[in-house]
């Protein structure tokens, strides 16, 4: 580990410590924004772990998130909350593994298409299963958890995601993924087991979405298929990651913070037009800043260096 690595690690740790102080300052509005930001940071960063280097766009975050949420909601009578979080991670990872094995062995757009309707598919199956078993479609998750506790849990999870992302970036696996993203044919020819690398990363990324869903479940307190598997979530995660920039580990964070604040404002002002405005924001990002905020910063930095 070089000196620069040590310095970056120390800086990151310091940033997390500062972020962890938020509940001591405010426990109302800003803490709830903080919870949203922490949640989307986990989701967007773990999304980028897989989709960033490989360019395989996953539109299925909501499916894994919802699975995690449902594991908690349905299992609360039988197991304790920490056990359920582990189960949620396992369930989301197993589901992602099956999907990955079916779709990621072949390159191309199959994966994207498959993930497009995945949340809706799981929603249909869950609704159907509930119908067959005769339970009502809504489930209550009544665990007392303060916003501050949830915030710290999500922040801790975010730290784990960043750490794992950093480790992957330094590993052979991360190197392999970058080659796959640049040219998959080359990757195969230099002897990379491309499907294994892709599936492993997809599983890791889905696992974090599952854990997030499980953690957030008590805050929602009422879980229902249409809410838990809302396609909006997948969309927001993609949009935030792209806004921030997907070729740096900390890129999504730069998208999550402004977008969450902006979205808070928009959904309060124009509650009826959220879908439309989300689409417009998305197009603006795809066309105007294809490399995200990070890309803009890096170009500006390079120009500044060049000018000197």
């Amino acid at each position: 580990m070089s000196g620069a690595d040590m310095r970056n690690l120390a800086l990151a740790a310091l940033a997390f410590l500062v972020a962890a102080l938020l509940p001591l300052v405010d426990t109302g509005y800003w803490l709830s924004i903080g919870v949203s930001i922490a949640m989307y940071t986990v989701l967007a960063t773990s999304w980028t772990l897989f989709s960033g280097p490989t360019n395989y766009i996953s539109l299925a975050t909501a499916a894994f998130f919802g699975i995690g949420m449902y594991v908690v909601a349905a299992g609360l009578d039988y197991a304790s909350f920490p056990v359920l979080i582990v189960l949620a991670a396992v369930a989301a990872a197993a589901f992602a593994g099956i999907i990955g094995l079916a779709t990621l062995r072949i390159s191309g757009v199959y994966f994207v298409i498959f993930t497009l309707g995945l949340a809706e598919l799981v929603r249909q199956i869950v609704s159907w299963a509930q119908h067959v078993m005769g339970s009502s479609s809504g489930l209550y998750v009544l665990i007392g958890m303060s916003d501050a506790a949830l915030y710290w849990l999500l922040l801790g999870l975010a730290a784990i995601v960043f750490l794992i992302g950093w480790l992957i970036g330094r590993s052979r696996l991360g190197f392999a993924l970058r080659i796959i993203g640049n040219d998959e044919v080359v990757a195969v020819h230099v002897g990379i087991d491309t499907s294994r690398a892709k599936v492993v990363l997809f599983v890791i990324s889905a696992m974090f979405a599952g854990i997030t869903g499980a953690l957030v479940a008590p805050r929602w307190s009422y879980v229902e298929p249409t809410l838990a598997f809302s396609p909006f979530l997948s969309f927001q995660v993609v949009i935030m990651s792209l806004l921030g920039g997907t070729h740096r580990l900390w890129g999504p964070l730069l998208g999550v913070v402004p977008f969450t604040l902006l979205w808070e404002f928009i959904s309060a002002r124009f509650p009826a037009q959220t879908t439309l405005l989300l689409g417009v924001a998305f197009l603006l990002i795809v066309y105007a800043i294809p490399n995200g905020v990070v890309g803009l910063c890096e170009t500006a930095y390079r120009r500044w260096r060049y000018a000197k």
Partner: protein
Amino acid sequence: MDIIVTGLLLGGTYALMAMGLQLQYGVARIMNLANGEVLIAAAFGTFWFFAATRFSPLWALLFVVPLAFVVNGAVYRVLLLPLVRRARNQGQLEVDSILATFGLSFIAVGLLQATVGGEYLSYSYLAEPVVIFGERYGLNRIVAFVGAVVLCAMLYLWLHRTRTGLALRAVAVSPSSASLVSINVARASALAFAMGGAVTAAGGTLLSMFLTFDASLGVIFTLKALVIVIMGGVSDIRGAIVASFILGFAETAVASLVDPGLTLAAAYMLFIIVLLVRPEGLFGRRS
């Protein structure tokens, strides 16, 4: 028997919708995730037309289809062509066009919700029973099926009997070779994209005759069309037709034997089977 006939009738309209997507993906190389929204918009258009004039919804084709042609052509020109120019390779274009059309689909859903609200709509046209093999079917389904067959046949003849159709098929096979024999690839792509939207819209008009729909339903139809195109093979129109009927049968079977809420599961099941067994599609060639 019931399942076979209903599946057949459903498959006809699916074929139309899938052929639209196939033109867009096969020729213009744009994976259009907003395809289902075109279908739903056409269904809404037909609903208004029928509510306002009480003429047969088939007449709505006369304005829905040209309108979809113009709108899709404009979308291609304004939004997608810059992506085609910007893309360094096919993979880049695929990612960009998926993201752009995904954003477009949300805009379309938002616009539809803003104009009609979120409720489910349907209208009653030719809702009288017809007896086939001892079972009763809605006349509107049969009319829609016949309409779909006629339109499919017209599209097929257009693609296989005219010079323009030949040019489109050439671009589908290889854009670079097509430009060598002086086919204007950019124009052919734009035409294919606009035409694809028009065909999908025709499918939406026919579908609206017997289906209840709402603004958020588009993504499901996009997915079905995508599954059909992949199952049939990207470059062959016959594949799409056969695959449409397979999906029609599978969905009807699941809906009547298991649960009507699980039709998407049927589509996914077929998708997985195709991916595991024959990823190049029924009529596709192994590369």
